[in-house]
């Protein structure tokens, strides 16, 4: 009897912990504008959590900045975000970001595979934030980094 109650309690706790998380899906409508300019681009590297693909920063006609990931692939994980970091690159072997590295949150990673867009806040200084990082906040782990170079 006690065992049953305990099992039920465990399941209840698990449901509470995970059940509330919405399924990740990205059905965003995107603005279509042929005047978009390609500002910067770079490719991802990451060994501990295999990360590959391309990161490109576009500027739309109205001045808005968009980060687009293409041919993208990384490992799935808990609490993974897309951030810009104020560094020229992030080391593969270090894999953890230094605490004093400047960070700019772009949003939760929409999917660990596939093409996806993220808005960059207007007024962001791209000469300061030079690298895109796929960043696991829970463990301060850098899954992969793409240093951006002028296109």
């Amino acid at each position, binding site marked *: 009897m006690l065992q049953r109650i305990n099992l039920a309690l465990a399941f209840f706790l698990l449901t509470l912990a995970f059940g509330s998380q919405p399924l990740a899906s*990205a059905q965003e409508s995107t603005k*279509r504008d042929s005047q978009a300019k390609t500002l910067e681009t770079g490719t991802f590297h990451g060994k501990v959590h295999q990360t590959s693909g391309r990161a490109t920063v576009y500027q739309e006609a109205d001045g808005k900045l968009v980060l687009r990931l293409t041919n993208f692939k990384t490992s799935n994980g808990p609490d993974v975000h897309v951030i810009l970091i104020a560094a020229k690159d992030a080391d593969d072997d270090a894999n953890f970001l230094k605490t004093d590295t400047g960070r700019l949150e772009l949003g939760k990673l929409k999917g660990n595979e596939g093409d996806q867009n993220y808005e960059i806040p207007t007024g962001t200084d791209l000469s300061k934030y030079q690298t895109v990082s796929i960043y696991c906040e829970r463990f301060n782990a850098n899954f992969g980094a793409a240093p951006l*170079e002028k296109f």
Partner: protein
Amino acid sequence: MNGTLTSWVLGKKWILVGIGVPVLVVAWWAFRPEKLWVNVKVNEPAPFSSSADLQPVYTGLLAGRAHPTSGRASVYQTADGKRHLRLTDFTTSNGPDVHVVLAQSSDDSLRQDFVKSQLGDLELGLLKANQGDQNYDLPDSADLSRYDTVVIYCERFHAIFGVAKLDKF
């Protein structure tokens, strides 16, 4: 006697379960190991019209070899399928008989500054200028999955001025 022993073990078991279950739950929450097998795929369209007449399909950065060389090499494709190579922010040193060629990144000749035997290459043309943005037509037959490296190549001295490995855009 037997009864008390059984109940003691039972009591201890519940303590173990009481500690073990929360530990497992916390570990699961932290590491989410099931995500190792679960992929989340997305496929968003580009934030601009994909019917734009000019699309970059490959790009790479030039790195200097025998002579300092820098800039970006990109392959663009027009709506009708024509491709051309474009060099931007480009600068290299001037020299005699300098060509823009495509080579295969697997070619061992590319490891050195000077090619000893023969560079298995695909000629794109004489370098138009040693500085500035410039375009070169790509032959329709050029297979960029094999010829994936742009080489600024001085044919007279078999010197590799600079190379750019092209990656899918």
